[in-house]
């Protein structure tokens, strides 16, 4: 086996040195009743050639662009990733390193993550960002736990227009705690109705997503001003951070914590993971933040360098008193994101965001012109909700046969939104493809 370098001669010499007569003998000290008796029932080893054929067969069954026209967003977005960005993020020196606990031999990862933290803070309009978390859902759950820690209150409110699975993850994290979650309904324009919170005196945090699951931009400033208490934190969540190349960032709209999914920044779908949990906050809350942080310092010779810092918040020092149990973050995804953000630059980021917006606006116009209803009037970014007429489910299935995936049906998550679909257009969606979809539906 090519990953196991030991020759029979090596094994014999090493066994002799440790005075054990066989490989099996290395385990003689394990009590007999703890030993496995049965053989391992897994497939026999494949050659690399056979593995390639097998994996190719699995991959062929998957519906992907460009063979399929996929109008899905809903938390995972298709964007063009420059060849240079994928190439750099695949460098062995980044990929096969461990967490940078030994800074003298990890300055590459450390500086890159410091740069990721900086660009993330700038993008989200916040003062400090951590080195990343698992995904948007767990970032939101950790943000709400942080909100109750900071505010010392017991209840949090979350908008129903937040990604449905993020809300499910939040509920799972809160289930064994003493804290409560209330859900806020959405209004007819597609934004959150926060009228219920104004008399609540035990509210630690309010979470809204902007753009939200319907693609609509929330009015964060208005929500901020309706918070019942100075101690209540506004948590702005997102699943499409490219929107902040066009719209005001969460920080500039009053958010205390901004968190969400960063997959759209140069990370492929890969069937939903790994993604990138982005997490940023005001500096005054830094000691309550979960996750790793990289800071700048100097070495013994006075040269600038970077280290993991403020680790007294973390599990390996604080154990049960830590701000979170998180250990591994998504460093390589954070690296991919910072390379992507650097490749776009500030100017490119704005242009790309504008192009996404204009594509979606064109798409909305074409659907409206064809007679379909867009139920929510709020401005959107690159996805939006369409209310199709009764019986559209049949057309949706027919379109699958024609290799068109006409967005995501909302009824599974919102029973009241029958025949409502959320559709997405990014810079990778050609105008011809949008026209084709409209034409096919009309047929």
């Amino acid at each position, binding site marked *: 086996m090519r990953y196991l370098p030991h020759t029979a001669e090596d094994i014999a010499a090493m066994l002799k040195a440790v005075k054990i007569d066989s490989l099996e003998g290395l385990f003689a000290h394990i009590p007999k009743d703890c030993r496995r008796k049965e053989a391992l029932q897994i497939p026999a080893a494949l050659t690399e050639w056979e593995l390639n054929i097998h994996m190719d067969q699995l991959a062929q069954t998957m*519906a992907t662009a460009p063979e399929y026209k996929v109008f899905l967003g809903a938390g995972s977005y298709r964007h063009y990733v420059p060849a240079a960005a994928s190439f750099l993020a695949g460098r062995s020196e980044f990929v096969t390193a*461990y967490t940078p606990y030994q800074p*003298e031999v990890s300055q*590459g990862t450390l500086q890159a993550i410091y740069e990721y933290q900086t*660009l993330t803070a700038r993008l989200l309009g916040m003062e400090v960002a951590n080195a990343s978390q698992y995904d948007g859902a767990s970032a939101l759950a950790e943000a709400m736990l942080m909100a109750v820690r900071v505010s010392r209150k017991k209840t949090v409110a979350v908008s129903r227009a937040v990604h449905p699975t993020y809300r499910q993850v939040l509920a*799972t994290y809160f289930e064994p705690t003493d804290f409560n979650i209330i859900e806020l309904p959405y209004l007819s324009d597609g934004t959150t109705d926060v009228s219920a919170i104004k008399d609540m005196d035990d509210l630690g945090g309010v979470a809204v997503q902007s753009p939200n699951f319907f693609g609509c931009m929330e009015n964060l400033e208005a929500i901020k001003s309706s918070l019942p208490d100075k101690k209540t934190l506004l948590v702005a969540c997102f699943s499409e951070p490219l929107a902040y190349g066009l719209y005001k960032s969460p920080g500039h709209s009053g958010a205390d914590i901004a968190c969400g999914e960063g997959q759209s920044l140069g990370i492929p779908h890969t069937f939903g993971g790994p993604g990138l949990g982005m997490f940023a906050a005001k500096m005054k809350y830094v000691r309550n933040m979960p996750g790793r942080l990289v800071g700048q310092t100097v070495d*013994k010779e006075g040269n600038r360098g970077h280290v993991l810092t403020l680790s007294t918040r973390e599990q390996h020092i604080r154990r049960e008193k830590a701000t979170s149990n998180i250990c591994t*973050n998504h460093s390589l995804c954070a690296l991919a994101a910072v390379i992507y953000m650097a490749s776009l630059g500030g100017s490119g980021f704005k242009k790309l965001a504008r192009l996404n917006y204009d594509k979606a606006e064109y798409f909305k116009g074409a659907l409206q012109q064809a007679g379909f209803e867009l139920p929510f009037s709020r401005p959107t970014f690159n996805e939006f909700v369409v209310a199709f007429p009764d019986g559209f489910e049949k057309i949706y299935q027919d379109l699958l046969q024609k290799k068109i995936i006409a967005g995501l049906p909302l009824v599974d998550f919102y029973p009241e939104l029958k025949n409502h679909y959320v559709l997405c257009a990014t810079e990778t969606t050609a105008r011809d493809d949008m026209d084709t979809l409209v034409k096919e539906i009309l047929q």
Partner: protein
Amino acid sequence: MKETLGTTGLVFNEPLLWEKGKKGRSGFSLPRRDVAEHPVDKKLEGPGPDFPDLSEVDVVRHFIRLSQWNFSVDSGMYPLGSCTMKYNPKTNEVQSARPGLAQAHPLLPQQLSQGALRLMYDLEQYLTEITGMDATSLQPAAGAHGELAGMLLFYAYHKSKGAPRSKIIVPDTAHGTNPASAALCGYRSIPIKSNERGVLSPQAVEDIMDTDTAGIMVTNPNTLGLFEENIKAVSDIVHAKGGLVYGDGANMNAIMGIVNMGELGIDVLHLNLHKTFSSPHGGGGPGSGPVCVRKHLEPFLPVPRVIKQKDRYILSEDFPESFGKIHAFYGNVGVMIRAYSYILSMGPENLIKASQLAVLNAAYIKDQLKGTFHLAYDRPCMHECVFSDKLQKPYKVTTLDMVKRLMDYGFHPPTIYFPLVVPGAIMIEPTETESKEDIDQFIESMKAIAREAKENPERLHAAPGKTKRKRLDETLAARKPCLTG
């Protein structure tokens, strides 16, 4: 090779991203605009982020130079204890990058995503078989996330019995994530000391186990590299009081096909696919931390679960006792693909052999360095061994000094000052993918450092000398946090 592995060469300086570039540059080929501009709501419009503008060459040189400041498995031996820094096969990267998998949207209709679902289903079966448990969920995104899943399973199980419990037993050798994960589920950690043999004693567990204790978290082999020989007795005691046994499978690399975790009495076990199953660590993630359970805990596993109906694979939410979800989609599929590719490449015989060679390499290092360094527990070890700086104390040389010097010799340092029960711990896990020659060179380097400790301690205090940066001021970083530029 006679000469020392570590040397110096031309290393480039490189500023921070925003200290280079020029407004108007771009490293991106913007797709062609085929639609008109549409007006934007002025009240919502923002200025866009303040990022530097860089050319493609600027970006490439920047990150290539940074990459050259990193130590990695692909450049040399990385004997970090409990981290299992084995070789990360390149074919795994090719498989996970296949467009059909990498470009697959997570919300595709299920009939159009059969390949990914089959892969997840089969991987669950393989992991269930390798651990000797009954069912597996791949949803947790990392080891600590798997521990959280395990604690949520404990919580859901006890709640279903009508009596949520408040405490959990955690040995003093445990990784810090154990008590932190338990705390997230509201459990108070009750520490328990390992005995003079470095393992749990049944009596000590008996003394504190009661009906308000949800169970125990055991790492086996433990972080001293020792097999918890009393595990079955410990499990019986915990089960007798209605508790559950959590197995931290971080050290599974020592026992693939050799120990059946289910038979030890373990009810929940998490695995680290980025340790045992060869997916790369990525400088700190992404990982993947599947949880394997015995039958009685299966109803509580997170949803959706992949199930097989005749020849079709479907995602089912229909598990009413499930504790819920801990990931927006299904977990880190990209990491699962690598682990699946690894298991299929290895087959049953090579997985067992990998564990045997991992233990052989550790036993050999333990034997060769015994006497040069103080061995905390002189007993048969599994995949790692733990030394300390006790013999170097008279020369005023610490573990930190010695491992920093090891960098100059061309090796990544072992895990240090952990586990906490060994003062000045040096925890060495070579893994099976290091050859005898490389292990011998590591041993020679460690011996040379022990000699230097006697003869030239100053050199160790000043180490490392050959790295891009010398020792960094961590106190300054924490006292005056500078977290963004």
